[in-house]
């Protein structure tokens, strides 16, 4: 068995999330790869919570398609997932003496009742241990990292004393024993150990990855306003920046946080903010200021269901239009699209280099799926992160901050440099010396200068990654977490012998038109799957490249599954 998906569902607050985190961590220790997926209730308390872990001995590309094993902590969870309980899957559920009133029989589904509530309450006299009972049962039944789990328990609860450790271990054992004694395994699922964990593995969420990427990318100034699902980025930065002698500000709103970042950037810092759609909307005006004043900065946008407050805890990829084209006037920006957690680290760090090199705002478009998920990944080596810094004024008279150059990039001075470097950064159209100037000639010259930088970038940026080769019936192009799903779906299609390819661009704006056209030239049909209602990437791509892709849109708050996408690929073939 090389791939297994376990899903746990129940009431928010029943320890679903911590149980999921633990088994993911234990599995990572046992050498498995993991990729998790959670959904939170919209409210602070109560409501349905779900945690899914995908385990594999191979690299995991996405959340996967459905789940093999579902563990229902209560009736609501069971009801919500009933439709997904396909023949061949496994159900473990709280029965008897939970709120599920009848034994469950579903054709072809391996149903194992486990009275987790009763065991926790009656046998262990600690209702909170219910999740540990379930964990024990799951770990045992499917042979996942049992020893590692127990070790982890000892470490985790060690600080809380022997007693706590003992109770939790007892709960795990109770789960194991109940299954041993009462259930005969009828299903085929058995993960097994992957041997030893590779030495250089870490387990990290997408949001933490953005924080880590920023730190590795040299970010030392950060300001943000809390917002779901991006707050964890700020939490990470808040913890580490002071240790690095950096500066963290919790601002009064998103406008202020971007303003803080602009000031810090002007003064020389590698600076960043993180937010989600509602925050990014508020930042549009100041983003334009960053473009015209040519200030490097990074924004990580963890997209959520929109518009307005929308669906704060749900996955969506509907900020692409705004990322590329929001705000008034013509203002160049760079937008990067990470595929998975490792990519977030890499691209967030890279975002700082691009911001510095091209002196403009760089947006990293994360999304709900990426932000909340946890992945085991190869440990990034800090030494491998090379920092590119802005072209700097080196002193001397006659300095012009916005000197027009062949690349569009001009050296920057900053306060503390000498007086001859002094200039007034401004949101007004200006001449090379940064003085306001609205003559037609000057306007065109400086507008062209700013957009020239995008041309330079497109010329210099590495080609988008190609999956597959030769001519194809279908070529898939997507962005963000949907790239991982596409990669898996295309792999599945190719394994079936279908002529399918994919292009995985990291630079989503400006578009790498030549590369996209060359790719499209090898495909009969271009398919653009994305998680939004308008088909934003498809429209932009049509608008910029003239290629006319088939747009495939999902906007129900969930990521695509590879099977869903595979079916679509076959449909458009």
């Amino acid at each position, binding site marked *: 068995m090389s791939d297994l998906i376990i899903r746990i569902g129940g009431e928010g607050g029943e320890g679903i999330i911590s149980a999921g985190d633990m088994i993911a961590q234990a599995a*990572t220790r046992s050498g498995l790869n993991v990729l998790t997926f959670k959904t939170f209730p919209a409210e602070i308390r109560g409501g349905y919570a779900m945690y899914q872990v995908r385990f594999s001995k191979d690299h995991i590309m996405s959340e996967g398609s459905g789940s093999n094993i579902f563990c229902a902590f209560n009736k609501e969870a069971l009801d919500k997932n009933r439709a997904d309980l396909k023949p061949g899957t496994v159900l473990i559920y709280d029965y008897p003496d939970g709120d599920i009133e009848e034994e469950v029989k579903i054709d072809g589904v391996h149903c194992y009742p486990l009275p987790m509530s009763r065991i926790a309450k009656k046998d262990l006299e600690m209702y909170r241990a219910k999740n540990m009972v379930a964990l024990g049962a799951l770990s045992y039944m499917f042979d996942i990292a049992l020893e590692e789990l127990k070790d982890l328990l000892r470490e985790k609860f060690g600080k809380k004393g022997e007693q706590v450790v003992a109770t939790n271990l007892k709960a795990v054992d109770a789960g194991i024993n109940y299954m041993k004694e009462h259930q005969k395994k009828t299903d085929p699922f058995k993960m097994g150990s992957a041997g030893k*964990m590779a030495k250089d*593995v*870490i*387990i*990290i969420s997408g949001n933490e990855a953005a924080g*880590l990427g920023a*730190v*590795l990318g040299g970010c*030392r*100034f950060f*300001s943000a306003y809390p917002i779901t699902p991006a707050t964890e980025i700020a939490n990470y930065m808040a913890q*580490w920046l*002071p*240790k*690095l*002698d950096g*500066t963290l*500000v919790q*601002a*009064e*709103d998103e*406008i*202020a*946080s971007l*303003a*803080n970042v*602009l*000031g*810090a*950037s*002007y*003064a*020389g*810092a590698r*600076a960043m903010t993180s937010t989600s759609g509602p925050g990014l909307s508020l930042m549009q*005006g*100041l983003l334009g*200021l960053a473009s015209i*004043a040519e200030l490097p900065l990074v924004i990580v946008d963890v997209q959520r269901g929109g518009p307005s407050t929308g669906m704060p805890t749900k996955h969506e990829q509907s900020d692409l239009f705004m990322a590329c084209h929001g705000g008034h006037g013509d203002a160049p920006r760079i937008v990067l699209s990470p595929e998975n957690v490792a990519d977030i680290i890499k691209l967030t760090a890279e975002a700082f280099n691009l911001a510095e090199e091209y002196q403009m705002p760089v947006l990293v478009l994360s999304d709900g799926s990426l932000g909340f998920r946890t992945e*085991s990944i190869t*440990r*990034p*080596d*800090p030494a491998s992160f090379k920092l590119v810094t802005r072209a700097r004024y080196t*002193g001397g008279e006659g300095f012009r901050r916005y000197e027009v150059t062949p690349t569009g990039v001009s050296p920057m001075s*900053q*306060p*503390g*440099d*000498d*007086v001859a470097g*002094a*200039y*007034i*950064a*401004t*949101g*007004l159209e200006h001449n090379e010396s940064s*003085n306001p100037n609205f003559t037609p000639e000057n306007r065109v010259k400086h507008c062209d200068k700013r957009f020239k930088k995008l041309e330079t970038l497109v010329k210099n940026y590495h080609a988008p990654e190609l999956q597959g080769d030769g001519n194809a019936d279908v070529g898939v192009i997507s962005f963000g977490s949907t790239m991982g799903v596409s990669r898996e779906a295309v792999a599945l299609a190719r394994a079936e012998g279908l002529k399918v390819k994919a292009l995985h661009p990291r630079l989503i704006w400006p578009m790498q038109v030549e590369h996209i056209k060359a790719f499209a030239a090898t495909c009969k049909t271009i398919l653009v799957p994305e998680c939004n209602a308008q088909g934003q990437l498809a429209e932009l791509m049509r608008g910029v490249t003239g290629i006319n892709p088939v747009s495939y849109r999902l906007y129900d708050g969930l990521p695509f599954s590879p099977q869903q996408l595979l079916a679509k690929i076959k449909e458009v073939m």
Partner: protein
Amino acid sequence: MTATTEALKAKDYRSGIRAVWCPGCGDYGVLNSVQNAFAAHQLPLNSTVCVSGIGCSSRLPYFLKTYGFHTAHGRSLPVAAGVKLSRPDLEVVVFGGDGDLFSIGGGHFPHIARKNVDLTLVMMDNHIYGLTKGQSSPTSTPGTVGSITPYGVPDTSNVNPLAYALTYGATFVAQGFSGKPKQMDAILQEALNHEGFSFVNVLSPCLTFNKVDTTDYFKAAFIDLPEDHDKGNLVAALDRAFNPPAGKVYSGIFFQTRKPTMVENLRAINKKQKADKNMDLNIAVDWFKP
């Protein structure tokens, strides 16, 4: 860079750019006093940053030779905070108008003030939107006519900038008048001297659009704070701000206190965390070991 040990004079702070204000605009006087105060402190041209928003008054940084940032309407304070908090070595001075700072920018003011961010803020209060040609501003006297308020401002009360700043926790609060240059020079010097957030409201008449609160009006209205005014008493300062004698306005330093500044607070945190610019980043990575 020509190394010079000669003292900088007021005029040395002036850039080559001609001030674009209307003849007689109060902002000329502010610019003069700012140059004087900068010279009095011998602020280095290359490590002083003048930040502003948008408005006639916000054009001021162009006329100085220092570094500067002419930001967006209402955003001078958070931009300036970004400059200062990332680079505490810089002297950061903020300029703006009553609309810029109390209307569209009014949401930032309280937080910059209560955090005691080490900035000097000079507001040019003309009780009007000058640049957009004469709309009433939050400091306009209720009833006065503006282009969008042709039948008079319908607001029950207007913004009292001093009282606001005091309530927000500004640690230095003063008021001057462009028609009283000596006092303004002195106030600005004190403000620059102050450690923490200092706010100076300068009544700076708009000759072109404000036909009510004119230079003459202010000349008649301005009186010094009483000799016995207790600068250390917040409630007393509020009382002076809210209750000047009828038809009068106080000028002078209303309030001053020394509290830890935002820079100091952040430094203390970093110190406690054993801040180290050269920390081995492997530590930050290995924190994620399973």
